[in-house]
């Protein structure tokens, strides 16, 4: 880098004054997002630790509670998120090659898929509310009080306890379920908000092959949120299915 570098007039309109050139700005932005994702990994990691400990302590209760979750909605949501990651990656691709219309369409698709995920989640949460499965007194007017199926009864709305599981331990599962999926949903809402910003500026034509760092960086965030769900789905929804017909 020559001594005269800082004397050159700033080229690209998006170049911030404290950076020497766009390459440095892009490098900094990408590294910054990765460092932020590290903090997110540790943040969710704490909850995964709590999950692991309690699951090994109360395996039957966790299996019973997990089997009571709606596997179809969970699997569909997984598919939705994976598709949204694909459309997000495609949006970055189109920005890199300068095709702004497909880029915008892919962004819109990502946002719609994200909102679909949240919609399905809302339906699931509503079901839990109706079955009085919201733990403790989080909803003061509807404390945790699920109907428990007796031996041999087949009823989808009732909790089937496996082995020596107790309702108290099942409540712990739901506590972790709501904490983890709730935190995940919060991150998705933030992600959807960020994508909306991105959409607005994309329509204004701000991004292209020379400047697409924000699209890339928010894409990284979105993929991370997808990865968290990739782990949440089997750990929360699938852990007891092989015991379902016991």
């Amino acid at each position, binding site marked *: 880098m020559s001594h005269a570098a800082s004397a050159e007039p700033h080229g690209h309109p998006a170049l911030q004054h404290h950076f020497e050139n766009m390459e440095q700005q892009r490098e900094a932005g990408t590294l*910054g997002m990765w460092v*932020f994702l590290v903090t997110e990994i540790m943040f969710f990691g704490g909850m995964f630790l709590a999950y692991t400990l309690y699951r090994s302590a109360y395996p039957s209760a966790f299996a019973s509670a997990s089997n009571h979750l709606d596997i179809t909605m969970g699997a569909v949501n997984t598919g939705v998120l994976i598709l949204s990651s694909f459309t997000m990656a495609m949006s970055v691709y189109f920005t890199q090659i300068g095709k702004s219309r497909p880029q915008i369409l892919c962004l819109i698709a990502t946002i719609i898929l994200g909102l679909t995920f949240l919609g399905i989640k809302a339906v699931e949460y509503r079901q839990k509310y109706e079955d009085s499965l919201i733990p403790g007194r*989080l909803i003061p007017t509807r404390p945790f009080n699920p109907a428990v199926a007796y031996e041999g009864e087949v009823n989808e709305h009732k909790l089937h306890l496996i082995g020596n599981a107790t309702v108290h331990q099942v409540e*712990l599962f739901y506590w972790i379920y709501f904490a983890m999926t709730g935190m995940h949903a919060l991150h998705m809402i933030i992600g959807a908000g960020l994508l909306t910003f991105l959409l607005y500026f994309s329509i204004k034509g701000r991004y292209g092959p020379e400047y697409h760092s924000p699209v890339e960086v928010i894409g990284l965030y979105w993929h991370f949120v997808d990865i968290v769900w990739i782990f949440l789905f089997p750990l929360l929804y699938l852990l007891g299915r092989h015991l379902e017909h016991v």
Partner: protein
Amino acid sequence: MKEFEAFDLPQPSKVNYINAQYGLKSWLLTKDHKRIALLYLGSITFFFFIGGLYAMMIRLELLTPQGDLLQSTTYNKVFTQHGIIMVFFFLIPSIPATLGNFLVPMMIGAKDLAFPRINLLSWYIYMAGGLITIYALLAGGVDTGWTFYTPFSTTFSNSYVVAAGLGIFINGFSSILTGLNFIVTIHTMRAPGMTWFRLPLFIWSHYATSLVMILGTPVIAITVLLLAFERVARVGIFDPALGGDPILFQHLFWFYSHPAVYIMVLPSMGVVSELIANFSRKNIFGYKFVAFSSLAIAVFGFLVWGHHLFVASQSVYAGMIFSFLSFAVAIPSAIKVFNWTATLYKSSISFDTPMLYALGFIGLFTVGGMTGLFLAAVAVDVHLSDTYFIVAHFHYIMVGGALMGYLGGLHYWWPKISGRMYPEGWGRFSALVIFVGFNLTFLPQFVAGYLGMPRRYHAYPPEFQVFNVLSSAGASILGFGMLIPAIYFVWSMRYGKVAESNPWHLPGLEWRTQSPPPTENFEATPIVTWEAYEFAPPEETQVVGKFAGELETA
């Protein structure tokens, strides 16, 4: 290489970062890392005084064995709040947010940090967290201890746990954003020629600190959040009566809070490296060892948290592992102390105020660190846990270590930050008063703790009174000693001697621009061709046998 001696600065312009723009908005909406550092300086000093007031109440109560000044519940709130304010709102941000924010870009030759707006945001987040915590204090206080152990904090305490927890949670983001900014800046914005091994050790230690901030703070965030939800929802992740595990809380809490003490002390060690090398006019002995020891402390610091759980029904086997690792973590710190000492050997020491603080740090940190080794031995810890020995141990590190480094750094870089010199005589005097007051406060506490005086008690058996009286006397001296710099720093901003760009005649990059610096830090992007701490050979410097701090008049 005598380049810095012959460095010909153009006639410094009168415009600097302080007077470049006027008005409250230009400060509250600034993107300049130097102004943000001053915003932090003001708020951190404010919180320090609040924490100090709580300390005063503790020491006043403990003058007599009976609980006569405060009720026990009030006393619980006082020591809790002293801890929360001092740890989260003073010590953790202190050096990184003030000196770090100011100096990191300057020392690497950059115009600002990588993300200036995020830097400003981190100050606002800090203030939001602080104000919520102050609300919790004023509304009725929190009495769980700064450690928030469950199930007392989740189920039995009647105090403002959720509000205080929320304040701490929000404040954590400030820490995370600062660390993120430093890591990205140091990786991507070094000036041409500024290779990793030419970086000042201040930068290495801030890099290591930032690693700890990034990796540890999110865990306390989720822990405090779970704690708050449990308290609100009455479900037991941590409450044994509801099937939960209180030890899980302690594991999660200390996973952050132990590395947090390295967040507090690593920047201070970075300052001390600067002070020792610069005020003995000698290249630091074993630069690479000191640099890597910062990284080692950051990594090892994450492996030892279980030593806070030795008496908490943690498995004995885990206890042995954590005990061994706790001994190991002392090694990189010891490497630093040895290297600093070797730097001092046969060097040209000038006993200016910053150097006094640096020397104080070495002695007091060593005492704190050694007593930490006693506590790392499981059997000894069983006896000393929850006694005043622990209190003395961590205050030696936090006050004798971290705070000394902070004060030393403030004095050292004050001419760069404000363009004025502080009064050197008063500086040396207050450093000595602080040193004496500090030791008188905390040395008796080691003895009292060893003899069995428990911590967090407002009343104690009469045989411990003599130690407490000595300690409270020391605390008054310490408090007095710390008021003096508060006064003369403010005084110096108007009446202090005007400082030139390099009043100490030192080779660091931050001294090669005017004092105070212009908003873009340097007139032109510097090209670095010298090593860190590259001093002229002793016979060529003018400072042998003379205190370098005396300013040459223009």
